[in-house]
């Protein structure tokens, strides 16, 4: 059984959860709408399970675990942020409403450069053109960590850095804008550690130590930043880690059959594009159509538009990056 099977399945699942949580329900929630069957799903599934933001963070966590497990190339990982940032800047300049709705005057060359280089995410109170770009930032950390041939040093160093930032935040340094990236980052490291254990490149005791350190870091970040507590991210992280480990350990013929399907591979290959383009293309289409056609119809149009845009970006950049 190839190890690509569970990763493909999980990435495809993450694509569905992310699109549902950040485009479909995210758009409706931004307009104060809580229609059926979404309300029913929240009442009967999300809240009983303790999952906030309609599975979106769960999808992100699964995606980051997979990225840590099988990190891709640096350039290919970065491209979705570069393209989505330029698209978002263009959309704002021609007057389209995207998920962040930044004012026109904030789209300056310096601001776009800040978004392209993640500087806007690292500094507080900057206009973010692609709010979820930090997820790709975490994936880039996975690429860097994968360079470390020892397997343990890079994750340990990142965990120490996360711990130090928690200590600074606890002592009054304003790092609230980094809270989510810091909380999700240990999952990338956990995926990396599991991969090293799978490859027998890391002793079991070291893997156990690092894995525990990742979970402790996640819990520490959650306790350090009060604004995060209401989202119960450690609950979602628990599900994500369990699903990830179960998928790795028990994937069989049925999983291989599902992973081999075109739609599964399509979703798995384009999950990062769907992630960043949902807030740009999806919201722009929905906001443009909102007053002219019923929202459910507009939602279908937006999903098709995001899918087409993600597919086009994936095909173009795959050719350019030679992969």
């Amino acid at each position, binding site marked *: 059984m190839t190890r690509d099977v569970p990763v493909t399945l999980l990435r495809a699942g993450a694509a569905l959860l992310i699109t549902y949580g950040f485009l479909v*329900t995210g758009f409706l*929630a931004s307009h104060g709408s809580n229609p059926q069957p979404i309300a029913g799903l929240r009442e009967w599934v999300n809240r009983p399970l303790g999952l906030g933001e309609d599975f979106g963070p769960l999808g992100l966590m699964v995606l980051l675990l997979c990225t840590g497990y099988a990190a891709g190339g640096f350039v290919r990982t970065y491209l979705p942020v570069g393209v989505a940032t330029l698209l978002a800047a263009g959309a704002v300049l021609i007057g389209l409403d995207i998920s962040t709705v930044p004012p026109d005057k904030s789209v300056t060359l310096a601001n776009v450069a800040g978004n392209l280089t993640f500087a806007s995410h690292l500094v507080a109170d900057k206009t973010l053109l692609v709010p979820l770009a930090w997820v790709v930032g975490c994936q880039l950390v996975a690429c860097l960590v994968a360079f470390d041939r020892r397997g343990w040093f890079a994750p340990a160093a990142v965990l120490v850095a996360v711990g130090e930032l928690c200590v600074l935040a606890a002592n009054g340094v304003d790092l609230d804008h980094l809270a989510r990236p810091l909380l999700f980052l240990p999952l990338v490291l956990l995926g990396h550690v599991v991969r090293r254990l799978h490859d027998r490149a890391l002793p079991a005791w070291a893997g156990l130590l690092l894995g525990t350190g990742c979970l402790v870091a996640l819990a520490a970040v959650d306790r350090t930043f009060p604004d995060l507590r*209401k989202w*119960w991210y450690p609950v979602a992280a628990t599900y994500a880690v369990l699903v990830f480990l179960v998928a790795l350990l028990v994937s069989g013929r*049925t999983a291989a059959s599902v992973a081999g399907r075109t739609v599964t591979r399509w979703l798995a290959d384009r999950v990062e594009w769907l992630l960043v383009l949902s807030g740009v293309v999806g919201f722009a289409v929905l906001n443009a159509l909102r007053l002219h056609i019923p929202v459910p119809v507009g939602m279908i149009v937006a999903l098709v538009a995001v899918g087409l845009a993600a597919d086009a970006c994936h095909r173009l950049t795959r050719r350019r990056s030679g992969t």
Partner: protein
Amino acid sequence: MRGARRGAVAVGVVHVLLAVLALGAVAVLGTGADPDRVDLRVTLPDPDPRLPVNADVLVIVRPPGTVVLDTTKEKRGAWLADVLPAKEANVLGHAGAVDAKAFVSRDGALSRGVWQFGIRDGVDPHVALRAADDLYGAGGWQRAPGPRRGLLVRAQTQPIAAYRAHYVVGPYLIRVEAYGSDAAAVDREFAALAGRQLAERPPR
């Protein structure tokens, strides 16, 4: 490949059967709602349905000191008659209160408490606010200045120093109280606790 497909079909059939079983049970047995208690329903506002839990389920702060009463872990709170004197439970019950979630703490001779009374659907929570305030007024408690508009404060000095303040948050009547033998400590601790509670959940 045929074997894998057959396996997938079997897994799907099992899931469908389990779903039919669960939905059938709901159809036959109902959702667990008790029609006899429909008059006691308290519908909560849900300001952010994307949160994993409704933040308005519990709107009271935990007072400092050793907690000697905590009914906040009960999903519906405690019955009024279980945690209040009979007369008070009767008055509040008639004014629409259904249940009580409360923290009461003790610190030597000083007690502090914060209570959240759910007011049933169709009843204005301000009716319960006036009923609670009138009950203490009739009992000889004096009106005291409150730190904020909307908060009705009553105080007494004998037999012990005590404050009881009430206000409304959404479908809840909130009570903040402090009592003990040291009047200065009661003054100080009541002001601190009321300030915390009001900062966390102002009247609305």
